[in-house]
């Protein structure tokens, strides 16, 4: 039997998923299908930055889960994978946050 992948990542995935379903859905509707230019109603650079960070968190937590789901990896591999994905996520978030002001 496979060991459980982690209750905290499970919780992070669920919470970010529910947040993204609502806010990213709203963002896509407003930005791409309402013909609005610039920020949608209630959107600021801050909320978009939060949305970006939540999306990256969800994406990398999901990637970690998919990789660990393949087979029973060693504990050290799990730690290395988590740290690698964490660093990659931080780099992506920093790049995104730097680019964000120039997009709108």
């Amino acid at each position, binding site marked *: 039997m496979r060991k459980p992948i982690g209750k905290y990542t499970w919780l992070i995935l669920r919470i970010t998923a529910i947040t993204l*379903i609502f806010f990213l*859905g709203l963002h896509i509707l407003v930005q791409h299908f309402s013909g609005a230019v610039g920020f949608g109603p209630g959107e600021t650079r801050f909320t978009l930055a939060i949305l970006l960070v939540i999306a990256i968190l969800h994406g990398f937590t999901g990637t970690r889960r998919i990789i660990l789901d393949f087979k029973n990896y060693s504990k050290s591999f799990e730690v290395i994978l988590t740290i690698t994905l964490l660093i990659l996520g931080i780099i992506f978030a920093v790049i995104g946050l730097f680019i964000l002001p120039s997009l709108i």
Partner: protein
Amino acid sequence: MSTHIVGEYLSSLLEGFLNSDFVVTLIVLSFLFHALNGIRILILDTFPFGDEEKLSITALVVFLIISVFFLVRL
């Protein structure tokens, strides 16, 4: 100089590609499919006694309806 021109050309090509209707629709439909599948899993996790087959078909039908709506609006 020529590297600069090539870089500018490639970035404009990429920008045009990412902003095209096709790519935006692809991203939206991928998001929708992923979200509906996630909702399906959340429901099955919360109510394990539910009918998995019915729920899957419902999610698929909802996906198809919204996809058609988006494609018609495009």
